[in-house]
């Protein structure tokens, strides 16, 4: 189940970044990133099912890879256009609370 969720989310994000690529990663506002992540990804895309998806499901390297690469999956079209700065905030949130981060996110 978890794996599936991760795939969905990853896919979601990956799609997302096919649109806007190649911005400088990191140093954003993680707190705002959490808000934006919930707003853009959770609410518009995954509804209830992704409740368990947390930054701590992936390592920092994996989040970095996701945010630097592009691919497939039809989810991003449901997302509103997110400015680059917001994307970086989302990245900062996911990266800073990743499972191998100093402060892995707790559930919910």
């Amino acid at each position, binding site marked *: 189940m978890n794996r599936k969720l991760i795939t969905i989310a990853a896919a979601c994000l990956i799609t997302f970044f096919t649109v806007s690529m190649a911005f400088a990663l990191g140093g954003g*506002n993680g707190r705002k990133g959490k808000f934006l992540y*919930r707003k853009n990804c959770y609410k518009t895309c995954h509804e209830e099912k992704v*409740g368990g998806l947390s930054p701590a499901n992936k*390592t920092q390297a994996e989040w970095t890879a996701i945010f630097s690469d592009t691919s497939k999956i039809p989810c991003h079209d449901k997302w509103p256009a997110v400015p680059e700065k917001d994307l970086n905030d989302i990245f900062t949130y996911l990266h800073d609370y990743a499972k191998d981060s*100093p*402060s*892995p996110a*707790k*559930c919910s």
Partner: protein
Amino acid sequence: MSESSQKISRRDFFKASGLIAAGAVGGGAVLGGLRKARAAAVPVKPWDSKFSACDMCFNKCGLIARVEDGVVTKLDPNSKFLKSRGMLCARGNAGIDQVYDPDRLKYPLLRVGERGEGKWKRISWDEALDLAAQKMEAVRKDYLPCGHLFSAGTDLHSQFVGRFAEVYGSFNVTSHESLCLVSNNRAFLDTFGEVPFADVLNSKYIVMAGANRFEALVTPDSIDLMTAMRENGCKLVTLDPRYTKTAALSDEWYPVKPGTDMAFMLALAHVIIGEKLYDPQWVEEKTYGLEQLAEHVKQYTPGFAADQCGIPAEAIARIARELAEAAPAAMIYPGRRSSDYEDSTQIRRSFAIVNGLLGNWDRPGGLLAARVVGLKGVPYEAPWYDENHEDRIDADKVPMMFEHEGSFLLTRDAVLAEDPYAIRGWFIYKTNPMATVPNRKKTIEMMNKMDFVTVVDIAMSDTAWYADLVLPSQSYLERYDPCSGLQGSSACACVVKRDPVIEPLYESRSLFDVMKGIANRMELGEYFDFTIPEYREKQLRELPGAEKILDRDGVYYNPSKVYGIYDGRIYKTLSKKIELYNQRYEQMGIDPLPVYTVPTKVPANRFRLVVGRNALVTQGSTANNALLHQLLPTNTLWINPNAAKKFNITDGDLVEVSSSVGRQEIKAEVTDRIREDTVYMLSGFNTLSTRQHLAHGNGASIAEILEGGYDTVTGNAALHTTFVTVTRKVA
């Protein structure tokens, strides 16, 4: 003999003489000869049995409440509850006197005198909630949302304090953890990538330092430790400046010099590496940094450690060999409360590193990873407050604070300095910083900084005593609680919940209802638009049938994998391995390997004050319990006979204990169960609140004396860094 008992005796005499005469006539036997064959059948008590989980400490042991006519008359262990091994300790049994404590808060109280003066006015819940909402709104307006602090203790409702804080707009939330366990968590997380459970039951050799498992009960570890020792021949070596009950029951005990545990641990590593006692294949495959560690510990010979910690070098070398011999079913017990020294994270890193060398991760008798419990989070979408400051008030003071726990001591300093910004509102639930945080006077200053303090608790704690608004909460036997996922080491991964066992007493309300009431008055009601049973349904959405089992057994077990969880998986560290050498520390300028620093020498004519527990105490919440009070009527100052002699102190003398921040009077307990350079007392006594009639003016408050040092890596409190003088009070 009093007049009253004479009357009683006479009454009994008349009653009894009649009975005996009858007996004599009927049976003929009298005076020692009257023998009945059989006791009369005992009537069965008409009680209801209801499941719950104990709340006298953090363990949440499964219990069955016996209820007669709506009153709990007995709390029994739930024998199906594997985490607590079907037991209930003294505090668990005494829970009944917490619920029915005559000192319990009964209705909302508004302060009408000065802070701490104890003048209160009874108000209605509507008035109370209106006022709380209005004051919180004012703080948010005048000082930004992050200008309000939220503190919640260990409780299943505490998550609603966090939820409220977030939707209100404040990230300044503290838990009890920075007064307790974050140094240990930091160290193990930064070594293994997660905080382990100790498989005590299956261990063959345990070194326990900085922990007192037979008195500071942790389930199932405390019980499993005894089973391991008596049934499986596990060996226990304890390091403690006090001869605790754990020390007394150990195979070996060493009164280690306080603050030198790291020297001992690094010497163990020195021997294990030097004599190649580790499993080379395992260490090669699973760990990172053996070479650097080997080089680093060369200097830490058993001889060096012996000079530091006072444990003979031969014993250190032998213990290292014995540990390695028993590995991987051997461990340095990780412990829990690690708020001891300014380098506690590094001290605990040295514990973690020896475990790494023992190759015990994810294996029977070693350290276990978190199992799947299956409970799900209940997400919500908090609003964004763009006007807020960017970070917590305690941010950037130490390099590795846990963002979601914060640091109480750093928060207090920042609040007092109003740096980097002001905090003027404080909401506190079921935690008692006035009794548990070092330097009580400073906590009072922090209170005085606040425009408005709201405390929700079941008792008039010292923290409530200094608040503006005090709201009576329900005890654990009176309310619905969310589900909680627990791991009982190798025993189980389980889910518990609480349903009301009795009707709420007085006007008490659950914290959830309080939050909901305030939220509704602040247009935040949408975030609390549910009931606890609805919330639990969401938590349990991926465990079909669990709710039914919970109702039947009082506990639900997830039969998830116990060992070998990491087979084919990476460790959650930078190197994806167990980090003997921590790469992130190196990047951040923190010692990547623990470097031993000699602890500050105890100054002449002074003592190091250490804290600790016994099985009848849960910090600031049990000293007013009438049942426990009978076994532990007060706290005392443990002082070694040689030290006592030097200061002309005899057992039972009243002494003054004095530090740079405060002084208290307490009775001396002269005992050889403590080192000469160390003194000790229990926490929770001598409350300022007069509405704790057994604890007020009784014994000494350790919070008044302890100074406020902290762990420079995590911001955890450093409770063993206070030096005190002890002077006999002349009668």
